[in-house]
């Protein structure tokens, strides 16, 4: 096969049995890779209704056909499983040498199933694959784990692992790989922990071949020429934190558990401030493989209370630990981020959950004796302390480790849980971004900013994609709701393709469009995607299968909703003042555009049309 390596590595952790299978060509053609291929294999192999922590659940590490190739930033893998946080589909993506090395070792995906009796790690050295005892590695943080595993395998091995948070089944524990990269959301690391699998190390010597070399080269060249280098440079300098000022300008920067969207300390935690203060090495970090941007950075904190050195923080992290917790101390935000990375924990859910606990404490819903100390907005030390406690499930941290929805249930109300499908919101308040509100509500993995980036259109002004260009759109009003349903549907389908191809989604808001991605995919794999229509139809197929997975897992349209605050409490200040998310007006049109019934159920006709019968 071309693009794909053509092999699936199956690891039965219960029996310690390792087998290699041929990649199912039909599945590959119809679901591409990454997120799409992952949900297809998972849907076909497990009952979505099982408990996420049961041995029947499986964890899939899935690359895309472009991963490891010369396409710009073709460096991603996706961890697909049933989420212990949401009970829905989980698909968390990360970039890094680990992803490319999986391909170079000859595999498109790894299926991890069953449950090991004792802690183990997986060592993949091309065809030589073995499960090894993780004695002495279990319990180490992610940075220590990567080094320890490399020391006993190969210093050139690339490693993905869980930290102590994953071992302790924190419901939003992540998988960490390479230097500070995270497959962050939905608790994929906790599922790995429940299987007693500490790490996957890989080294490979094979190459990624493409179907039509000359045409693929041209497609790569064209993609490189399309990139907006002014924006690339800007993004290189400040990375994702650079967007904080803009988000604040739109009045949608979550503040004090989404009580408002503006605050007077945003400039203290902006990307520019970060670049000028804590960032080291001329503002940039080492790039992910094949990336022309290098948006990452390394920060160093010298303040003895928060001292540390490591990757990040990214924008979402700053929004959640900083703005949303009322914290204007950048060193504390960086420290919370260091802890999350080391312990292997999603920074978004962690920060958001702490903010939720802060509001509930301030409202007298959580007694101080349960927490052990006062937990008020703006208390930087409390945020850092609690982050550590969550990772170790110590004291009140044990409650927060279940996620803020479950914490709310324990204390009598989920009203202050800010998220969807039990997954916490990332760093955008949807009241000022109507499309995002609809995207949050309908996203298969719950609240998420990168599974239907409607904010790319109205907030970031990305207008080169066909889904807007073909409609003749040049500028969008983020506060308008009636024009959003068709755009949200298309952007969700488009992101299914983005998350399946193996490239980083940043390449697309740096101007690579749908046709260029199709060209890269077709010339790499040799498949005919059926033009733009067929390409988008593939994205739609993936989106529908994820939703179908959720329906069989027991989620219904009732879960396609937003917190009362988003729907009923008008934004109190800033540019979005007076607005709520007009979800009830958008949903019926959205379901209709999806071809679902008015209850949001996917009928037989639609399933047949998409080949999902």
């Amino acid at each position, binding site marked *: 096969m071309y693009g794909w390596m053509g092999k699936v590595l199956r690891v039965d952790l219960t029996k310690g049995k390792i087998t290699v299978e041929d990649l199912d060509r039909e599945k590959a053609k119809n679901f591409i890779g990454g997120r799409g291929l992952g949900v297809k294999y998972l849907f076909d192999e497990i009952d979505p209704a099982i408990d996420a922590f049961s041995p029947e659940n499986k964890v899939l590490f899935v690359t895309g056909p472009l991963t490891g190739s010369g396409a710009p930033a073709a460096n991603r893998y996706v961890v697909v499983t049933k989420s212990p946080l949401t009970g829905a589909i989980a698909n968390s993506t990360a970039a890094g040498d680990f992803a490319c090395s999986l391909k*170079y070792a000859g595999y498109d995906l790894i299926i991890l199933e069953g449950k090991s009796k004792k802690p183990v790690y997986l060592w993949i050295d091309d065809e030589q694959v073995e499960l090894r005892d993780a004695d002495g590695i279990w319990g180490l943080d992610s940075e220590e784990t990567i080094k320890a595993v490399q020391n006993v395998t190969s210093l050139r091995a690339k490693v993905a692992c869980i930290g102590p948070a994953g071992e302790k089944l924190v419901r939003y524990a992540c998988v960490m790989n390479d230097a500070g990269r995270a497959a962050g959301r939905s608790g994929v690391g906790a599922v790995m922990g429940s299987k007693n699998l500490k790490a996957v190390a890989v080294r490979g010597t094979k*190459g990624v071949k493409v179907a039509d070399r000359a045409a693929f080269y041209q497609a790569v060249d064209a993609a*490189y020429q399309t990139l907006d280098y002014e924006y690339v440079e800007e993004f290189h300098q400040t990375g994702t934190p650079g967007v904080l000022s803009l988000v604040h300008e739109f009045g949608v920067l979550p503040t004090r558990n989404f009580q408002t969207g503006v605050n007077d300390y945003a400039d203290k935690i902006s990307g520019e401030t970060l670049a000028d203060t804590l960032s080291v090495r001329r503002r*940039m970090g*080492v790039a992910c493989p094949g990336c022309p941007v*290098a948006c990452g950075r390394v920060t160093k904190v010298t303040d003895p209370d928060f001292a540390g050195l490591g990757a990040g923080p990214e924008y979402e992290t700053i929004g959640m630990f900083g703005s949303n917790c009322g914290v204007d101390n950048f060193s504390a935000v960086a420290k919370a981020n260091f802890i999350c990375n080391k312990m292997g924990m999603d920074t978004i859910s962690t920060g958001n959950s702490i903010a939720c606990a802060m509001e509930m404490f301030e409202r007298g819903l959580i007694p101080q004796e349960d927490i052990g100390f006062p937990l008020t907005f703006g208390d930087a030390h409390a945020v850092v302390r609690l982050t550590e406690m969550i990772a170790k499930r110590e004291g009140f941290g044990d409650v927060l480790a279940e996620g803020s929805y479950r914490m709310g249930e324990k204390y009598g109300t989920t009203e202050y849980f800010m998220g969807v499908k039990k997954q916490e919101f990332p760093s955008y308040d949807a009241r000022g971004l109507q499309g995002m509100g609809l995207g949050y509500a309908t996203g298969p993995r719950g609240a998420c900013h990168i599974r239907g980036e409607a904010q790319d259109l109205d907030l970031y002004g990305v207008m080169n994609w066909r889904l807007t260009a073909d409609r003749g759109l040049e500028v969008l009003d983020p506060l308008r709701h009636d024009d959003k349903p068709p755009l949200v549907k298309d952007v969700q389908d488009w992101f299914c393709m983005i998350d399946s191809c193996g490239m980083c989604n940043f390449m697309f808001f740096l101007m690579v469009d749908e046709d260029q991605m199709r060209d890269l995919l077709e010339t790499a794999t040799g498949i005919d995607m059926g033009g733009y229509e067929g390409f988008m139809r593939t994205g739609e197929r993936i989106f529908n299968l994820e939703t179908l997975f959720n329906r069989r897992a027991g989620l219904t349209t009732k879960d396609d909703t937003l917190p009362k605050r988003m729907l009923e409490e008008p934004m109190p200040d800033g540019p979005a003042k007076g607005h709520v998310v007009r979800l009830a007006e958008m949903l019926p049109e959205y379901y209709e555009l999806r071809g679902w019934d008015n209850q949001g159920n996917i009928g037989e006709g639609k399933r047949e049309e998409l080949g999902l019968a």
Partner: protein
Amino acid sequence: MTKMINVNIDKCTGCGVCELMCSFRHHGEFNPLKARIHKTVYLEQEMAVPVLCRQCEDPWCARICPAGAITKGTDHLTGATVVTVSDEKCVGCKMCVLACPYGCITVGDALVAEKCDLCNGVPQCVKFCARGALTFNDAAEDMLDRKQRVADTLLTAYQEA
């Protein structure tokens, strides 16, 4: 002086697109292990250093080659010095591998010596290096650029002092 591939370590992010495009050009696949340029990433120092053939004016690989398979010549398109291997003459003895002080000539799957050949005057590693860490320019110009960067640093230091 003529053109050569220059490395500006300051600008390298270690993305490795140079390796990918090199292996694609020479071996038809994306495989960093088959690339003729190699970057080493130092994660803790947040640095990456690319290493590639310097196209020596007195190439030790050529001097030691018992089969006379390695010759120094001039690239037709750019006039750059380029040291090339004749696949027909190479006997795969690997003496060149021992001789090269940079580790930039290897014997690969085809069992003949492989090294950077400047891609017929359009080095692919340079073409795709988005951050400008690799340049294919006049060596004299490059030296002036380097001296100017030192001067810039001194100027900044003076102004801050």
